[in-house]
């Protein structure tokens, strides 16, 4: 086993995902199978290979710098239009700090 149910619960906690016991059992099985397949990467010696974080191609070194120009932001009302709960120009969430 690459991964135990206990580890799956721990990872779900890290990911802020509430999962049912059925989902935990299913995910333990699926992740175990996928992680076993992923182990094939260990056949490769990559100690001398630079990691590739992004697709790169030739461009001027300063190419991604642009002029610093003002641009109107979308504004509070539009930004909050999709909020499940908003008030006084802010997103509202359950109470975090007790007074």
């Amino acid at each position, binding site marked *: 086993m690459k991964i135990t149910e206990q580890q799956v619960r721990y990872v779900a906690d890290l*990911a802020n995902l509430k999962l049912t016991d059925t989902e935990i059992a299913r995910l333990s099985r699926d*992740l175990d*199978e996928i992680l076993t397949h992923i182990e094939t990467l260990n056949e490769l010696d*990559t100690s001398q290979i630079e990691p590739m974080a992004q697709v790169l191609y030739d461009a001027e070194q300063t190419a991604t710098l642009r002029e610093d120009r003002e641009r109107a932001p979308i504004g509070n009302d539009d930004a909050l239009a999709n909020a499940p709960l908003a008030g006084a120009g802010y997103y509202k969430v*359950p109470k975090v700090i007790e007074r």
Partner: protein
Amino acid sequence: MSTSVAGVAALTVEQVRSGLEQRQFSAVELAKSALEFAQAENPKTNAYLHFSPERALAAAERVDRKIAAGEDPGPLAGVPVAIKDVIVTKGLRTTCGSRLLERFIPPYDATAVARLEAAGAVILGKTNCDEFAMGSSNENSAFGPVRNPAALDRVPGGSSGGSAAAVAQGTAVVALGSDTGGSIRQPASFCGVVGVTPTYGRVSRYGLVAFASSLDHIGPLGRSVRDTALVLRTIAGRDECDSTSAFAPVPDYLARLDGNVRGLKIGVPREYFEGLTSESGDLIQKAIALLKNLGCEIRDISLPATKYAVACYYIICTAEASSNLARYDGVRYTTRADGETLSDMYRETRGAGFGAECKRRIMLGTYVLSHGYYDAYYLKAQRVRALIAQDFRDAFQQVDAIVTPVSPFPAFRLGEKLDDPLEMYLSDIYTITGDLAGIPCMSVPCGKTAAGLPVGMQILTRHFDETGMFRLADAFEKAGGFTGSN
């Protein structure tokens, strides 16, 4: 008066243009006919999630006004298009195929959408897809699967299944999709249309809801190579709103669609044919023979890191997805579940909102990035990714283009592969390598199986050589008679 436009299901971009020029129909008449047809046909496939008649008619009216005033209405004037529902549209619901965004109304347009409309295109609606573009069958949509127009009991492929189905069904002339590991090319091959994944950075991702940022692309689907080239020419090019968009000038992809590919060196990577005994494999072999007849020089090549691509891809894409999907926490995006504390609210919202495949990928991505595993998984995968990219660089020293299958098999039956996520992942083997390397790649129809299921051939070229890719695809399409084969 509703004058219906004849043959609306089979129009090409250029036929729309000449129809407008010769006053056979107005843009408004075409938009009305296209909407009417699309809405009537949609229950068969579920390709569209929602339609945008007001926006479509407003765009069509602008085109008609320009034509009446003697102004240039733009290269895509009046062309009915469909937009995958992971690409945001101002004021028009964008769900990403997810319950979490069921009621999300974006406050701005994606750059690709804005450029299409500026060129005169008419957006008919938003197309169904796997939730947050995660899937190879379109069965992971929260709003029901899409059915393949070529065989209604089969999947259209994914994740851009709705876009591919709409184009194949004739309910859009062209469509936008997105591709992270094959999500444009695989559904294009399953539905018998052309699907293009351009060079990484060629098309701005501003307004594409992020899945795996180092791999995400926007690209076109159409019924002919020419139509997809026209759309790509319109949406490609640097965008200040996406710092990863490329500065390279956009050439006129249509200038060299002359059918002449004599002397072109084409690589056939042996690793892509090992164990490929399906009818799809036979059709690719026939396609290669056809290219040889056109005067191409066929060379056997090797891309040795291919067998590691699936493992590499599913580390990188899930790691990046787990970060990108962290934002759906019940605070900003429409859907919130009740919870006593902030933390409970996050967990309840995400637990209830995400479907099974998204959860699986968030979990795998969180696991590979968690404390103590980063080097063993994410960093290792980035090193393997460098090897895969190097394979292609080496190959392009010897050849001008590479030709491979798109998928090991044609469209499968709904439900057939749902229970085995690893098997579903492994079927992406031929398409994910192009995304990992960031090179342009496309699927072009190469015939049908005995049961009538479409099969696509993949063409890959060097970074920014979309011109060469379109040229080969167009010559092949003309020689094979596959244009508009659906």
